[in-house]
């Protein structure tokens, strides 16, 4: 095994980790604020992919389309939250999970109706162009996706930390009852958080559109489980934890995939998942939220 191939695999894994980071960050804020384990999260990624496809067919490049895609998914997700999640927040957890699964069925079905079940790709003339960084070769699309993901994740983190609304979000996630007493409109915070969490997933989808061929079940098949692994690894509800966890899992999958072959790659993150659950269920950053 030579070092160059290893470095290449690590770099590719890290790039993918950036995308994992924002998917998982979306999932973790939703969990943090309303304790809902969102099984429809993968479908918001898929929606991001397909909406980017539609924008592309209207002549809009994938990167120009991203803000529109994010806004559309925000509205869709907020609608789902208002109609289906909010009424179930006081119900047993298994009900909420199954409601998100019902949502996931609906979105997959809708995607098949609108865009068909076949594999689709967003055409981009420079999709295969690449730059070299020492021994490592990275396509511009991957590099751009990575940098955008990091930038957006960073600004989200800053918002959570320093803006009034961000503080309200953290208050609502730590103690909804007290937050309500302090005059925070917890329902609004939950609605915006759900929308924003789904938008992060959609952004990951938009950034992946020129990289991955898409199909209606790609979200649940490829990205849901890694997102869960990362959320647990980075402590459930911890935003920064999800970002770091995302990069870590990306890196580990990249190197592990090279060493074990792609079919066993999933086993690595699953083993990490189980080990973290058993030995440090609070994740790497337990205690802090």
């Amino acid at each position, binding site marked *: 095994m030579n070092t160059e191939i290893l470095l290449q695999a690590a770099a590719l894994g890290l790039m993918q980790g950036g995308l994992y980071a924002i998917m998982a960050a979306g999932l973790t804020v939703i969990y943090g604020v309303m304790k809902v384990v969102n099984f429809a999260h993968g479908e918001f990624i898929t929606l991001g992919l397909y909406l980017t496809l539609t924008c592309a067919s209207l002549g809009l490049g994938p990167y120009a389309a991203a803000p529109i895609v994010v806004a559309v998914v925000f509205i869709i997700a907020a609608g789902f939250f208002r109609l289906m999640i909010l009424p179930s927040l006081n119900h047993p957890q*298994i009900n909420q999970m199954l409601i998100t699964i019902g949502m*996931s069925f609906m979105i997959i079905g809708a995607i098949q109706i609108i865009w068909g079940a076949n594999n689709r790709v967003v055409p981009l003339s420079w999709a295969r162009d690449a730059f070299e960084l020492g021994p490592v070769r990275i396509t511009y699309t991957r590099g751009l996706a990575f940098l955008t993901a990091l930038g957006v994740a960073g600004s989200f983190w800053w918002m959570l930390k320093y803006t009034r609304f961000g503080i309200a979000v953290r208050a609502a996630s730590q103690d909804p009852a007290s937050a309500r007493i302090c005059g925070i409109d917890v329902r609004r915070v939950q609605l915006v958080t759900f929308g924003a969490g789904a938008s992060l997933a959609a952004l990951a989808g938009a950034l992946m559109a020129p990289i991955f061929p898409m199909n209606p079940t790609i979200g649940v098949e490829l990205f849901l489980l890694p997102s869960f692994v990362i959320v647990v690894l980075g402590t459930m509800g911890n935003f920064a934890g999800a970002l770091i966890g995302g990069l870590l899992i990306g890196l580990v999958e990249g190197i592990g995939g090279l060493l074990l072959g792609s*079919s*066993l790659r999933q086993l690595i993150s*699953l083993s990490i998942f189980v080990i973290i*659950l058993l030995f440090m269920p609070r994740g790497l950053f337990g205690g802090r939220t």
Partner: protein
Amino acid sequence: MAENTRSKHLKGKPDWLTVQLIAWLVIAALIIPAGLFLDSAYSLNILIMTLIFGVMGLGWVIGAGLTGLLLIGYISFFGVGAYTCALLFTKFGVSPWIGMPLAGAVAAGVAVLVGAITLRFGLREDYFGLFTIAASQIFLVLLLNWDYAGRATGIYITVITDDFWAMQFVDRRPYLIIALGLFVAATLVAYSIMRGRFGLLLAAARNNPDSAQALGIEVSRIRIQALAISGAIAGVAGGFYAQFTTFIDPKQVFGLALNFDFLLVPVLGGRFSLIGPIIGAFALRPTEDLLRAMFGGVADAVYLVIYGFLLVVFILVLPRGAAGLLEDRYNALGRKDDDKAER
């Protein structure tokens, strides 16, 4: 619980659990003539699948409903059972009549392992749930990479002639009888748990684990026992499923899609009830097949949208499942009579 004990004391009115058992037996008795009159293999298959879902639902009620554990990766037990039975049959020629109980035993072993690990490490609620999901995915990946079990292609069981010992029937009706047998057996197991001391212990542990522990109930131990029973039921059902469908692959018997289909049955029907899983199974399976038939083929997607929407609406309207509503109605009925009698 309080409602239950109250209605028990009412004169001349059987309690809710007994009513549920009677309803079960009536349903089971009605299925035999229905099966004999159903000519098409298609409707017969739907009926048999409904029964399998009912059995799976009962298993989940025992392992998750009664214990209060968030058992969302329930399909592991089913898949392990299916693979055990199918491997024993195709590789060693072991009759499914022996393979099915063995499948149940292996699945129960897996359930005990899952229970022992999670409860030993103090995993609760979400974490327990995620662990069970992870376990099912680990089984999926392992079987996808296991040459002996046919990797992604899975296992085929070829049916050529009628062979009782090999549980192979060209005419599908005997499968209905076997499924019905499993269904009645699972019901009786669930009933005796709910009726007996074990059910009370589980209820105490579910409602307040700490007080139950303080009262001397070994919470972890009884939960693991309940998981084992649940696993055994799911394992036997999985073994039968393999034999009945004659084809299994990892993505199917360890996949999230079938897993969630299994969970929906008891949740829609009623999580703590005996009658819930069969209401759920009879409401869901034929509906799913009907929608598939109506919008089949290319428009499979329309079915997904409608199915997903109906699920969400029913879970929102009936958070305790259909049986929860029925139970309230039944108890209210008693109360009215009671009031009249007092007057």
